[in-house]
């Protein structure tokens, strides 16, 4: 691991200033992603600015919904009474990820900013445009079973690994950040992560030194009919092959509004807008769920080894919608 200067911080502004002043500096929160990548030699910051003690851990209701501190732990967030009551799908998504120990360390800001688990990104001896821009993508011609079927480019097909982000995308969350000039800005969740295009090295739209301060989720009526389904190679402790966050607002036996986002299928949490549109005004039946899934998955483009994700994705959408409709949250 490259040697680094350790800089404690107690105020968000000071932390932002410290990272902004050094182009090789990074924030460290729970460290569960960053330390791993530093041990592998994939990240090599010359300075770590410790934000784990910043007073950004509150979870509270606001006039428009809920505000979740960026430094609140994943486990505390999942178990918070307000989150459980109003956004149970977020609770499920967080709890489906990693392990109890990791969720006790991981923070919300770190979770949505975590990097891909593409094995070629993790292997420093092979080409990877995300790790070494311009070197080429090993996954497109290599073993791409775990890779994208939506939104990828000829530069990168890695998927975003965050479960929490899939639920946040479905719930139309937004991300509050503090910039180097001391100004704050709001990034809609759908604009937070980036598609790779020609710049796969950039996972999200944060500028260097910008600090995530909180995540906001607007009020909704999805709580009674929502579900986060995760399908992986193991029942627990594995990243998603495919996951689905499904939420329905039901009104007089009809679907007033549907929200569906998928994980494991794209470089960012994938909102299934086509399926959502199809379901609006329909009855919550298996036929309709199936047709909605087809309408979304027909746009998928399989790579050599991940064609199975299309059928798996369809079935996962249908099952998640069935569980949401049944009120399983």
């Amino acid at each position, binding site marked *: *691991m490259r*040697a*680094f*200067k*350790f800089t*404690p911080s107690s105020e968000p502004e000071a932390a932002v200033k410290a990272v902004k002043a050094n182009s090789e500096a990074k924030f*460290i929160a729970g*460290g*569960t992603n960053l*330390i*791993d990548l530093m*041990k592998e030699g994939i990240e090599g910051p010359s300075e*770590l600015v*410790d934000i*784990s003690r910043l007073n950004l851990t509150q979870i509270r209701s606001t006039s428009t919904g809920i505000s979740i501190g960026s430094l609140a732990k994943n*486990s505390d967030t*999942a*178990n918070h*009474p307000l989150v*459980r*009551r109003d956004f*149970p799908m977020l*609770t*499920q998504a967080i*709890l*489906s990820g*990693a*392990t*109890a*120990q*990791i969720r*006790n*360390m991981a923070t919300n800001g770190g979770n949505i900013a975590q990097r891909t688990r593409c094995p070629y990104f993790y292997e420093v001896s092979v080409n990877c445009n995300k790790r070494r821009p311009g070197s080429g993508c090993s996954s497109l011609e290599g073993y791409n079973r775990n890779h994208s079927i939506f939104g990828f480019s000829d530069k990168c097909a890695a998927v975003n690994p965050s479960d929490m982000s899939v639920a946040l995308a479905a719930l139309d969350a937004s991300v509050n950040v503090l910039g180097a000039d001391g100004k704050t800005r709001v990034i809609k969740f759908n604009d937070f992560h980036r598609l790779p295009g020609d710049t796969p090295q950039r996972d999200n739209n944060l500028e260097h030194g910008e600090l995530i301060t909180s995540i906001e989720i607007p009020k909704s009526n999805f*709580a*009674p009919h929502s579900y986060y389904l*995760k399908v992986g190679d193991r*029942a*627990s*402790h594995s990243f998603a092959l495919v996951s689905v966050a499904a939420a329905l607002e039901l009104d007089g036996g009809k679907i007033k509004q549907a929200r569906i986002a998928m994980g494991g299928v794209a470089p960012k949490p994938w909102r299934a807008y086509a399926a959502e549109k199809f379901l609006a005004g329909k009855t919550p039946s298996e036929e309709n769920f199936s047709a909605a899934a087809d309408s979304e998955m027909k746009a998928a483009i399989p790579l050599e080894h991940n064609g199975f994700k299309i059928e798996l994705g369809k079935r996962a959408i249908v099952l998640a919608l069935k569980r949401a409709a049944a009120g*399983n*949250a």
Partner: protein
Amino acid sequence: MTNGIDDREPGTEAELQLQADEEILLDELGIFGESRRKFLGKVAAAGLGALVLEIVAEQKALAFDAAEPSLSPLTVENPVTVSFSVNGMKKSIELDSRMTLLDALRERLALTGSKKGCDHGQCGACTVMIDGRRVLACLTLTAQCEGREITTIEGLSHGADLHPMQTAFIKHDGFQCGFCTPGQICSAVALMQEAKNGELSYVTADVRQKTATIKLSDDEIRERMSGNLCRCGAYPNIVAAIREVHTGKATDPMAELPLEVENASV
């Protein structure tokens, strides 16, 4: 000081002495491991416990009284000084900013109970508790631990009194080689508190329902312990040990073994 190794000088001689002692200990554990299955059949749980107790106590004494070996100053870059408490004892050490808590515990504080399995957060062998919550020492920077209270496997027993979870692991044969065991036990101890607090898991049926405490089914135990891998596959016995502590209902490990197989076929 009762173990007779308190007068060692810090440095290479002390380290050699420590290694030799550890080897003796490992030998003992090895011999013990081989004959353990025969033992189980013959010896009452109490008798077996006493033998293990002796080893645990010895290991503990060794760890706490070991001189803190100092690293060569050349290897320390960007030194940071961190003060924290480990198993109730105040510690203050200067170390390289890169040093993980796992390496600090093992290499600087001679607390070798916490194990380095994968060093990447994937196996749980390094599980310790910080301020009462289970975490992974291999992904924790020691520099971030200022003022924290750390509990390792060495801190769970009091002298000869084993923690109930340790006793249950011994009784139910919740290990084979034992490498994952310190992490399993730390994890399981923290899990008991999480269940008392009503904390949820991905397999909890209704997350919207208010819960004071959670009664753990075997599925719940398995899901919540999924961060602790065991190469020896002692999982059923680990679940049995945790179930016993969680429910407070003692079960007979021998009764759970199928003694006779009827109509067996291969």
